[in-house]
């Protein structure tokens, strides 16, 4: 009884203590937690660090690493709004200076990578430190095709992976994310995606990208492309709609960073014929729907590329940029049902993927092609602004 009481008292003392850094590991599965703790102990040999997560025998932990219990997140592939809310509440309670949020699969992050991510928020006055993973070749294609170019063109942020599961945030950035998270929770959208880069840019906070090397990026439980694309792009389109007043003003792009390593080359052209075939089928069947969204020029360009052989198939960068901008506008105007709209985007996205695979197979670096796509989005931003402001002008 006495032992229990003393344990409770000691835990309460620890809970009320302060620390420099709070590591939120509530999204890490229990089986990975031990490895993450080992990496954290190595990454922070002397600093006072608090870690939220499962209960852990204190004997195996160094004294400066303390664990506090927190609600466990059950979403394995992406941080939920509730995770941001909890992170801020705990961080504020313990008066931490920065918060490091780690997601599922964080045991594959090297201690130095964890340290760099935390240092950006702790020592370099960065409000949002976004990791740049070295992904395998032909991975993260939705990010390369849509998320990165759109974020870069509209929010002038060069973060290569705008939607990541690990983040280093200052306490004021955590507060902002918690406010957004609470709004989603109030609207009962518990699985909604948050866009930290967009939030930080709108708030005028400092954003930086940290090279963290390789990492096992968790995948959604449903690997169906129809579901993933609709979920991720729909969420980004909604965020763009909500922040229209911000991104319509011209902004200067942050300076380019030189990434140390690009992904290794891999041949994924085996799937190209099937993707091109899917695009051709859509081109002959979805004209009625596409014509509600895309202007005649884009439809004509799509018709032209649909007759190309699969081996030389390519989606021109400027055409892809216009297609995405037209879909963003149609999403805002509700030209057609939003589910239908995002469904009609899938064959076009597959056409882009087919073109990208062909380009990389021909010897061009994957990153170079993605940068060219992002540059096309930037160059065509005035088109989106014009369509957004005067949509009727483009209907004829």
């Amino acid at each position, binding site marked *: 009884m006495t032992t229990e009481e003393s344990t409770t008292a000691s835990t309460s003392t620890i809970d009320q203590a302060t620390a420099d850094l709070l590591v939120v590991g509530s999204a890490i599965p229990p089986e990975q937690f031990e490895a993450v703790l080992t990496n954290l102990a190595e990454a922070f040999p002397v600093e006072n660090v608090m870690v939220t997560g499962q209960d852990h025998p204190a004997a195996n932990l160094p004294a400066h690493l303390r664990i506090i219990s927190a609600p466990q997140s059950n979403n394995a592939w992406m941080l939920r709004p509730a995770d941001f809310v909890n992170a801020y509440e705990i961080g504020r309670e313990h008066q931490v200076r920065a918060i490091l949020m780690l997601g599922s699969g964080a045991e594959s992050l090297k201690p130095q990578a964890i340290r760099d991510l935390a240092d950006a928020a702790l020592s370099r006055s960065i409000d949002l430190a976004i990791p740049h993973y070295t992904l395998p070749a*032909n991975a993260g294609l939705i990010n390369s095709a849509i998320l990165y170019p759109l974020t870069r063109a509209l929010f002038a942020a060069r973060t290569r992976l705008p939607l990541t599961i690990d983040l280093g945030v200052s306490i004021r950035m955590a507060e902002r994310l918690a406010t957004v998270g609470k709004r989603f929770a109030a609207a009962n959208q518990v699985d909604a995606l948050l866009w930290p880069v967009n939030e930080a840019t709108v708030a005028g906070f400092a954003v930086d990208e940290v090279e963290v090397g390789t990492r096992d990026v968790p995948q*959604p439980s449903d690997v169906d492309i129809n579901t993933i694309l609709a979920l991720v792009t729909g969420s980004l389109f909604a965020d763009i709609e*909500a922040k229209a007043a911000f991104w319509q003003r011209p902004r200067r792009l942050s300076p380019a960073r030189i990434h140390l390593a690009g992904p290794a080359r891999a041949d994924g052209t085996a*799937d190209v014929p*099937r993707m091109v075939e899917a695009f051709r*089928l859509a081109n002959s069947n979805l004209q009625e*729907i596409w014509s509600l969204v895309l202007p005649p020029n884009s439809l004509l360009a799509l018709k032209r590329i649909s007759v190309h052989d699969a081996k030389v198939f390519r989606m021109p960068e400027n055409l892809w940029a216009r297609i995405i901008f037209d879909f963003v506008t149609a999403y805002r105007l509700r030209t057609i049902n939003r*589910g239908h709209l995002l469904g009609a985007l899938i064959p076009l996205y597959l056409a882009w993927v087919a073109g990208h695979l062909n380009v990389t197979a021909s010897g061009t670096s994957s990153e170079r092609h993605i940068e060219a796509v992002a540059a096309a989005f930037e160059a065509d931003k005035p088109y989106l602004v014009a369509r957004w402001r005067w949509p009727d002008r483009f209907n004829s």
Partner: protein
Amino acid sequence: MQSLMTTTSLTSRFALAAPAYIDDGSIWHHISDALHQSLYRVLTLLIAVLPGIVAFFVALAIFTLCGMLISWLLRRCLSWIKFDLRLARLSGEGWGPTSPPTEIVARASFWTCVLFGLIIGVSAFDASYATGAALPISLLPYVTHAVGAVFLLIAGILIARFLARSVLISAVNAQLQYARFLSLGVKWLVLVLTAAMVLDHLQVGGKIVELAFGILFGGIVLTLALAVGLGSRDLVSRSLESHVERTGERGPIPHTTSPSSEQIRHF
């Protein structure tokens, strides 16, 4: 037989005895009388219904004007208290509809007033009809049914279009070659169902409509079943094979788990 012959001869004898000319004045008198009575009935009907019609239009006009006034007032008041801004703060930045909330409230108030005007106008018309219920007016109940039928038709067309698009997009993304055919089939299924419901609501056709609907609906379903069944044999067999072999999904659109696309990860 004999009695029949006797009757015939008597009739012919009477016919010979009758005057050879027809009284023209009497016929014209009857025709004129019938016409006068008909005109009187129609005029009486119109006189009985006319106040109702006038009341209908007056009620509609008054309530439309009221709606315009209320809508204008609401628009001004809500703009003055910055309703849009306050609502955006309360509900977050993700206001769903395209129009601003003030505009929606103003429009809703206007159309509510118009609807009230319609209801009051129709009841006034109904009241005037009731006073002359002895007159053979069967138009009003039919008009009510017609309005209902129009709503049914509009709803049916909207649902048909929505379902046709859903099926088309899903079928194209599943890379089914007969996607358009499937979509058309679904569209016509819903349209036929709507047409049958509309005719039934209008009480037109009776049993014939039910019979024709059954035949048409069954025909379309059978055609679709045959087309899909025959057309997707390969798809079904592939699906069954992959299920049995547990080798993951082999859908037509490459997924991350597809054996041939191990290198591609969309997310």
